[in-house]
């Protein structure tokens, strides 16, 4: 961690790190403690703007919006985490193998990746959800698969670049096996490119989940997430109560801003 800070001593990285740490920290805290029970209704405080008792106001049922946002953000971050995990792990394995060994398989797989990445990821995920149905697990699987090609391309390009360097040829001359070279000699050197990609992955995953659930083709109707709350809050705007939508949107925007600043900072040295 100290090394990361020394290497990326720029404002993007610092601001992104602080913002992400604060947001994730607050959301994690929300998993064990929220100011109110997210589902507790209170008829005396229906649809209020922000007050001291309810910092972000309440919805039509008198439920505390802050508590609900914490719960929803937890679900959204959980989905994003597993999506990035699936995308990064499978993408790295595929990118490493195709980049290192090359050949016909590499050529074919990269053409497929090109075709997939040409399509907006939300659109692909929408279509896939149309086929297999909504739900948290399905969203994770679908988005995870949609994210694999972009990671695979990045890792492949790095492997192609690094395998031509002298120290790899030397390692090979000394009789080091292919898999050991990939794991010990190349993989650690892909980290400077992989880390920003992971941060951007979180950014895109939060955005995709929010968009899909907002459209009603993400998590199922009984589950919470920031996207579902955003679609609920639509009705409030039309009745002149914009707070709900603004706070939910702001939460999503701050999460995304944190990850994107972090990615920008990780890409810049100094």
């Amino acid at each position, binding site marked *: 961690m100290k090394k990361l800070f020394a290497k990326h001593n720029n404002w993007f990285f610092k601001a992104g790190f602080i913002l992400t740490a604060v947001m994730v920290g607050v959301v994690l805290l929300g998993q064990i403690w929220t100011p109110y029970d997210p589902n507790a209704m209170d008829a005396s405080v229906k649809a209020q703007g922000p007050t001291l008792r309810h910092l972000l106001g309440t919805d039509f049922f008198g439920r505390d919006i802050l508590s609900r946002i914490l719960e929803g953000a937890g679900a959204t971050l959980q989905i994003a985490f597993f999506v990035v995990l699936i995308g990064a792990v499978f993408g790295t394995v595929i990118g490493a193998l195709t980049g290192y060994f090359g050949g016909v398989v590499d050529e074919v797989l990269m053409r497929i990746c090109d075709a997939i990445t040409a399509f907006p990821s939300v*659109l692909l995920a929408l*279509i896939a959800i149309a086929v297999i149905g909504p739900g948290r697990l399905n969203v994770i699987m679908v988005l995870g698969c949609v994210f694999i090609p972009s990671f695979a391309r990045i890792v492949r390009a790095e492997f192609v670049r690094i395998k031509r360097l002298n120290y790899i040829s030397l390692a090979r001359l000394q009789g080091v096996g292919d898999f050991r070279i990939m794991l010990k000699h190349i993989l650690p050197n892909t980290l400077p490119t992989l880390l920003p990609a992971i941060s951007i992955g979180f950014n895109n995953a939060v955005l995709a989940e929010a968009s899909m659930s907002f459209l009603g083709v993400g998590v199922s109707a009984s589950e919470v997430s920031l996207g579902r709350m955003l*679609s609920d809050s639509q009705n409030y*705007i039309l009745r002149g109560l914009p707070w709900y939508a603004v706070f939910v949107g702001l939460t999503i925007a701050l999460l*995304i801003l944190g990850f*994107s600043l972090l990615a920008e900072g990780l890409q810049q040295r100094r």
Partner: protein
Amino acid sequence: MKFVLKKLATLLITLLILSFLAYAAFEMVGDPVGMILGTNATPEAEAALREELGLNRSLPVRYFDWLFHFVKGDMGTSYIYRISVNEMIGEKLGLTVILTLFGFGLTLLMSIPLGVYSARREGSFADRALTVSNQIVMAIPAFFVAILLTVIFGVLLRLFTPGSFVSFNESPGRFFLYMLFPALSVAIPRTAMAAKMLRSSILGEMQKDYVRTAFSRGHNRRSALRAHALKNALLPIVAFLATTAAEMLAGCIVIEQIFSLPGIGRLLIASINNRDIPVVEAIVMILAVWVMVVHFFGEVISEALDPRLRS
């Protein structure tokens, strides 16, 4: 000309493969007959409907039949409403295309001047302010911009009534006023990204040897930028703009929902929820054609700008 034809051939083959994959995937969703008639239907009724929808033929036969009709412009019949898909999509497609082109035009109009200005005044206060605000704005999702615009211009300033779309035939002026806000919502985040890219691309070009040669021949920064660096600096932006045009269409699906626009995106979502497969297939194919075509144009323009890419 040859590279255009080659790209065109690749485009058609990709579309053909995509169309088969999409068709086959939706066939796996399940039996539409059971979904339309419910669980209490008699076997005779199910057989009759299957006959009517042409489902008793094999998958390849149905696929080629569908493809043949699609190419001729007949997109099939909705399972749910039993009317032609062409009729259902008709005007809705026009609205989405207008929104996408409107948003894309705004992105072009705003991002290129901002990027060039920022690069020309590198290091100035305006440049630094723009860089910081671009970094923040590009991370704001289009739907949050939409919410903010609705709250500011719809709820507080009452420039338009949120949720009450005015069609072009009712009043062209109010139609464009209403469409301005959704178009701005998709355009603003993309403008920030494009302006940022253009700035760093121009600054990268200005450091190159050929620009220094231009300086030595008596060009000043401004004329060297206009005569030499700008064309090369635009190259990476073209690919980004192609992606933007593709992403914007997907972004419009969400934006249509927020602004209650009767576009193709809302129809897609409704059809997915209704399991109205012919409509979903038709829209997916239209979107695929759009995505492939904008990337095609992006590549052709890139190659026109830089002949080295043609190999």
